[in-house]
């Protein structure tokens, strides 16, 4: 809707989260979908993965003190596959993550993240590997995601980013909160509905 913040440049420390096909059940287990608000859902982000990692003696990147305070999440392929639960990007966003840089994202997750103002930008595997390796070698590395220039920069490297033009424009112009835009010129919606035979029951 009109008045949503324009989102163009996001900077912060990086968190490398390795792994393919990280699904939304892992991002936020279904038992945390039982509340009727999103309040506090960030406390349970990656809860089972974090417990399993801690049990194995190596902290999950979300808990790793080296990456504490990170706000740019770096992921591999098909991140956010599975369920359409918006609870997944909500939990990530409310945890203080402002952008996700990855090889690829599931379509539903990507859309759910966009509509809450959480950009998911893509880059080829080799570049993502460089970025992850840079953060792991020098935790605290500042990462800058620039949607205007479609670049991701860090000390010692940079990447070209990809994001569908329409979604990029929505962030840059503050049109990512879609309801207001969809209510504009509503007579056109009524017009389309009137032309669809099923809306009148094929009478």
């Amino acid at each position, binding site marked *: 809707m009109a008045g949503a913040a324009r989102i163009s440049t996001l900077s912060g420390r990086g968190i490398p989260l390795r792994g393919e096909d990280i699904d939304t059940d892992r991002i936020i287990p*279904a*038992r945390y*979908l039982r509340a*009727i608000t999103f309040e506090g859902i960030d406390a349970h982000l990656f809860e089972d993965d974090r417990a399993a990692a801690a049990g194995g003696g190596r902290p999950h990147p979300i808990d790793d003190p080296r990456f504490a305070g990170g706000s740019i999440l770096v992921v591999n392929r098909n991140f956010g596959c599975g369920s*359409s*639960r*918006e609870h997944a990007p909500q939990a990530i966003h409310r945890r203080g993550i402002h952008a996700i840089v990855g090889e690829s994202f599931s379509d539903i997750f990507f859309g759910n993240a966009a509509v809450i103002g959480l950009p998911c930008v893509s880059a080829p595997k080799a570049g993502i590997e460089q970025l992850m390796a840079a953060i792991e070698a020098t935790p605290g590395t500042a990462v800058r995601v620039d949607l205007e220039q479609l670049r991701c920069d860090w000390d010692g490297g940079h990447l070209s980013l990809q994001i569908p033009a*329409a979604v990029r424009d929505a962030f840059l112009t503050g049109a990512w909160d879609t309801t207001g835009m969809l209510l504009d010129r509503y007579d056109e919606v009524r017009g389309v509905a009137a032309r669809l035979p099923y809306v009148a029951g094929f009478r």
Partner: protein
Amino acid sequence: MGQTLLQKVWDRHAVRVLPTGQTQLFVGLHLVHEVTSPQAFDTLRARGWTVQFPERTFATVDHIVPTIGRRRPFLDVMAEDMIAALERNCRDFGVPLWNLGDARQGIVHVIGPELGLTQPGLTIACGDSHTSTHGAFGAIAFGIGTSQVRDVLATQCLAIEPLKVRRIAVRGRLPAGVYAKDVILSIIRRLGVRGGVGYAYEYAGDTVERMSMDERMTVCNMSIEGGARVGYVNPDDTTFRYLAGRPLAPAGEAFDRATAWWRSLASDPDAGYDDEVELQAEDLTPVVTWGTNPGQAVGVGERVPAPDDVPDGERRGVADALDYMGLKPGTAISGTRIDVAFIGSCTNARLSDLREAARVVKGRRVAGHVKALVVPGSAGVRAAAEREGLDEIFRTAGFDWREAGCSMCLGMNPDKLEGRQVCASSSNRNFKGRQGSPTGRTLLMSPAMVAAAAVSGEVVDVRELIG
């Protein structure tokens, strides 16, 4: 060049190109359930918006509801609060609700078709990724998140990007004991869990044309597990016969007019596709997943992979999945001991699924160490199964016979795995922790294969039991 069904339906529902370049798409049918809607209704209330098309919006309860002990208030306080919120929201905004106790209640993707709401040529949205199920009718059906649920409630529209179309043709006769579930698991195994990202899947070929609507729904249901947000089958006489006489389908002359319109939307013979793939039905066998995503599957006669057998990029994922599942590399999947057998979910809890499972179960007993349950997809399926005596067959064999809901597919209600239990499941996801225990393990397979595993206590080839 002709058009695909996706293009035709898209064009008829496109309102305009938004300033961002996305398409504003009118939604012909919005299905609502208790879990992904409360925050959306709250936003409507806060901003003073109404539901624009309450007559094109329908709600039911499925995800969190218990499948036994349904007296209100529920013992589960959070479930009670969630259902109460949906009741309030539907009342305040004029949305029909098929609640517990209503003969029309059930899993949202089972009742839409059953009641005749799901029709060819519609755009359908629901806050659940398995909305792709409705594509079996030649509808374009999107799973959406809660902010998009808000958009559809408040505007009956989505802001969305166009999709490419991949045609997946399955040809030939399916062998006995090989089901629609095995077809879609085989497709995902071949194309991968991310192969469909950016695509709609059009399922075609004579095998799909011969499938019943129930079978087509099973195939379309799991499109999302292959990465495709949308899957569909072109509407044909099987579709129209299914819809004739359904309570909310057009009737009389309106049905004839509807049929003509529906038929016109099928993909043209000379339609262009972004990609095409073919599978031979004769080559397929019963499929069982061994890993932690639905693409990690083998034929029931095969062995699970070893990390060394797979390309470099996959090695870590395979090793991690085998470790989680507690399976030794290279062992036969057949013979894997199970603790729980679950027949249910929007993938496989329709009447024909229960019939096939009952055929395997009849005259046999659930293995002593196995807990087995059948959760029909809807109150309607449950009643129809009881009229045929299927409930008796399952009960006599030692299955629990429950009331309709999503149940152990995602374990949001009391139906959960415990600890590291292994579950033979007719559902759609074998993700880590999916069935309610953070360490629980899921083996996906057809309902008949679940029945066979239940009575054998381990994974077996159902073809040996139905000979």
